[in-house]
């Protein structure tokens, strides 16, 4: 290794401290962020230092190890709980027109929304399935590692100022009904229909450390894999591959692809632009 290469590979203090922080979090709380994409994780930890009033990552580590409440705050800053109903309407339109006819042929339907954040994606799919007359025979597993997000997802209550976007998105998804059929607005909040909740199970599950819990016909995992390095992406995709029935569907985020993954061969492209894949019969 020449001097230039050595200099390049030498980690900064921040990199060293970050590695130690991730090890500490794993040992103490069993959350595994060690396989997360570094560049964006670094940014979020930098933001966390300011928000939590720490001068260095080592200081943050010291506090996190002794204060479980502080760890929850850090988790919120590190896990990016941002979502939207019917985000990328064309994705939901493709599910409606292209996947629903196939999904209809199953007597009972199981869907896994992995990395569901505060629930918007799970409710979107529940509404879509209701519109297509499939919700009664469907069960949606919506999973995430952030317990605070899961609690908000359970509640199904969103600020009314977000409804304009949700409503536009919903309309553009080819919906035959109006989004307002599914919520009641009061005191600046929209409360989504409890009957949608009846077919959704929200639970704590990590794509980094947990295993498959059910056989499903559709997995929707959007804007979660971008936070992972390739090995962790491969782990998560391996779980989806195992959970899906042969011929089952996998939907990713608008900029995520199986092209650079170890499981690409197990799937065929069902809808290229909307990132919908189908597990091969033989995989």
């Amino acid at each position, binding site marked *: 290794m020449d001097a*230039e290469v050595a200099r*390049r590979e030498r980690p900064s203090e921040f990199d060293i401290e970050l590695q130690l922080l991730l090890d500490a979090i794993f040992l103490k709380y069993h959350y595994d962020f060690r396989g997360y*994409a*570094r*560049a*964006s994780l*670094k*940014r*979020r930890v930098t933001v966390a230092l300011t928000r939590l009033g720490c001068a260095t990552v080592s200081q943050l580590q010291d506090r996190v190890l002794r204060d479980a409440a502080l760890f929850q705050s850090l988790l919120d800053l590190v896990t*990016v709980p*941002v979502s939207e109903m019917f985000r*990328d309407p*064309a994705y939901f339109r493709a599910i409606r027109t292209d996947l629903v006819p196939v999904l209809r042929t199953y007597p009972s339907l199981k869907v896994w929304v992995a990395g569901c954040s505060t629930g918007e994606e799970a409710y979107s799919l529940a509404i879509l399935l209701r519109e297509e007359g499939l919700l009664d025979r469907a069960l949606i597993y919506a999973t995430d590692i952030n317990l605070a997000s899961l609690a908000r997802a359970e509640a199904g209550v969103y600020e009314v100022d977000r409804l304009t976007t949700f409503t536009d998105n919903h309309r553009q998804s080819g919906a035959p009904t109006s989004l307002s059929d599914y919520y009641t607005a009061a005191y600046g909040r929209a409360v989504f229909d409890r009957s949608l909740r009846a077919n959704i199970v929200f639970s704590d599950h990590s794509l980094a450390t947990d295993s498959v819990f059910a056989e499903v016909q559709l997995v929707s995992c959007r*804007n979660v*894999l*971008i*936070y992972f390095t*390739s090995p962790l*992406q491969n782990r998560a995709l391996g779980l989806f591959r195992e959970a899906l029935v042969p011929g089952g569907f996998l939907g990713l*985020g*608008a*900029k*995520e*692809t199986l*092209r*650079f993954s170890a499981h690409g061969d197990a799937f065929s492209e069902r809808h290229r*632009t909307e990132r919908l894949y189908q597990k091969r019969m033989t995989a």
Partner: protein
Amino acid sequence: MSRSGSHGAGVEAIVVGASAGGIDAMSIVLPAISEAFAGAVFAVLHLPRERPSLLVEIFAPKCRLAVREAEDKEPIDARTIYFAPPDYHMLVDRGPALALSADPPVHFSRPSIDVLFESAADVYGPRLMGVLLTGANEDGAAGLEAVHRAGGVTCVEDPATAAVPFMAAAALRRWPGHRVLSLPALADWLSAVTAGNPA
């Protein structure tokens, strides 16, 4: 560190950012990059949220390097200009490889110039060149400073002649040492540096 420095020798990557007026400015700057340049170019242009974006269609016919919209975890090809996709941040991660993120907007912008520049500075250090053009907000100012602090070469479009001077002016307020060039001079300089004859 003799290989780094202010002349642009040893540059492995170039980051370019612009906002209001940026399509026109990038149409002058990006085509100036020489086909002899063996590195990669990363560009962030603030645009209204829309999909699919037309940036590849607009720039590919004008540029001498290949032009692509970034995909997550894509290995970085040399001689390629990558645009951040609308509504995602684009970062350079270890590898180096491209990474996207759906983190909240920075300076009301996603993609954000700061996010790209800071991540690229971290990976490329002194082998990076940062260029900030026209724009109406201060995104990019912190990022360009990070490029400079990591030992990279930095340059802003002259606020006196930029379509919208605010962005370059904000960068100069943070650190006044960035090279300041008019758009045509910037294009000439970039062309010389990437052809291997830094002025």
